């Protein structure tokens, strides 16, 4: 536990020791706010539906950018050798990194509270979908993060980690959408609809928090964290 805490603390701190965190936060908050307020006054509705509508697309780029360096930088700079010759369990390191990135994501989401606050000042929004939207963003973001970190472990090049991250999360995002499912045989449609990252988010962000959707996201996180651990443990003995 102590070792996990040390990793978590160091990884979280690392975000803020370089300009990365500030650039991310600035771009993330700026972009989402701009995309939201661009249409907010035109539509004249006190709701955040438009905001949560663009969030999955923003996450597609934002989250791989948050996770791309987590392993690839260790590999490139050689610190991975330092890390794995310390008395650490792989699971402590992977969870430390994953949860540090998750904490950073939560901070970005907290910073975006400026949006619901402005909406509340402008009118009287329905709070259910807003809370649901944030819950959806939290769970979907976690799944993206787990995928992103796993991919970062596959390469020592951060740019490749980023691009692969975008491509793979995008692929998983549209898996359940009609673009993919319409060409599939009937029996496969529900499977793909269930596997896609997007559909669960849509239902949560409508304000319908179903335990199946949450279990789905937790399983995606679990699977990729497990794969990450598995890949690292098997690296050594080849």
């Amino acid at each position, binding site marked *: 536990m102590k070792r996990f805490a*040390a990793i978590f603390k160091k990884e979280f701190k690392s975000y803020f020791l370089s300009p990365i965190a500030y650039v991310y936060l600035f771009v993330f908050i700026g972009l989402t706010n701009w995309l939201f307020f661009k249409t907010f006054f035109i539509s004249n509705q006190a709701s955040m539906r438009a905001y949560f509508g663009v969030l999955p697309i923003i996450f597609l780029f934002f989250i791989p950018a948050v996770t791309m360096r987590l392993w690839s930088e260790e590999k490139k700079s050689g610190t991975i050798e*330092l890390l794995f010759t310390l*008395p650490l369990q792989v699971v402590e390191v992977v969870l430390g990194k994953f949860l540090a990135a998750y904490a950073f994501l939560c901070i970005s989401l907290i910073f975006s509270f400026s949006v619901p606050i402005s909406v509340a000042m402008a009118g009287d929004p329905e709070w259910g979908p807003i809370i649901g939207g944030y819950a959806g963003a939290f769970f979907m973001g976690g799944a993206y993060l787990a995928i992103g970190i796993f991919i970062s472990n596959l390469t020592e090049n951060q740019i490749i980690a980023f691009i692969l991250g975008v491509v793979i999360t995008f692929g998983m995002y549209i898996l359940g959408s009609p673009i993919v499912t319409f060409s599939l045989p009937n029996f496969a449609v529900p499977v793909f609809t269930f596997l896609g990252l997007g559909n669960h988010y849509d239902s949560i962000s409508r304000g319908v928090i179903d335990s199946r959707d949450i279990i789905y996201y937790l399983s995606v996180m679990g699977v990729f964290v497990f794969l990450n651990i598995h890949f690292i443990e098997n690296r050594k003995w080849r």
Partner: protein
Amino acid sequence: MIQVQNLKKTYGTITAVDDISFEVQKGDIIGFLGPNGAGKTTTMKILTCFLGATSGTASIGGFDVEKDSFEVRKRIGYLPENAPLYTDLDVLSFLRFIAEIRQIDTAKFASKIDEIIITCGLKSVLRRPISQLSKGFRQRVGLAQAMIHDPDVLILDEPTSGLDPNQIIEIRELIKRIGREKTVILSTHILPEVSATCSRAIIINRGKIIAQGTLDELSSMSKEYVYAKIRGDRSQIEEKLRSFGGAQSVEATGESDGFTMFKLHPVSGRRIAEDVFKLAVANGWSMSELKAEGASLEEVFTQLTRSGQ
């Protein structure tokens, strides 16, 4: 303390470490010597549990590096090649991070850190981000990191690379001091380093151990030469030196101010410097220099590593 048996590591078709075995006793400072690409780093990576061996076993303090990897990693301090560090942290937070992982409690860390700062000369850079430090300081931070938990065994991959001559001397002194209580393995391709710090050396080339022993043992593996600087007719002197019976071969290696330098390779087991002196006196040659020289580690190394090619 360290036991390595028939260790082998292949990467695809390349054999980096080919069936090596050695033992290191407690308190030894072992120099791991070899040309670049000889397999030194790979061996160290296996000993520190970073890589798995293809076959063979290695153990440190009785713990197998593969089966009890965690126990091994607790007991060793490792400075990887080029001292990789988390460069966005400052020196103190980096060392604190390592201490936290090694579960050193705060009180013990507070007392230990002062000692480490002094031994590694880090006082002036303690609050500086590692990214701003010179190679020499990074190397010292790497050493500090390896020693913070008082490990039984220190494994140092090229500890003095990238340092200036003064720093090299400091680090060597430091290693010697540590070696009084701990077991140290250091790798290098710089020969004087081994003569300066190590009690024993293992010479490795192309993944195989080609010689190991104390420095004296290694030096005695090579030949001794006698050098004499004599004035006079070169071919006549050469002839006489060759015919007195003590030298296998005589070679004139250089000439200055009318003196010629002769290099004599004695018949094995014979000490011929005195004979050469007597010969010079008997013939009335003037002589400005006479010395018998054992082979340096350099020569042993060159002879051993070249012959395998």
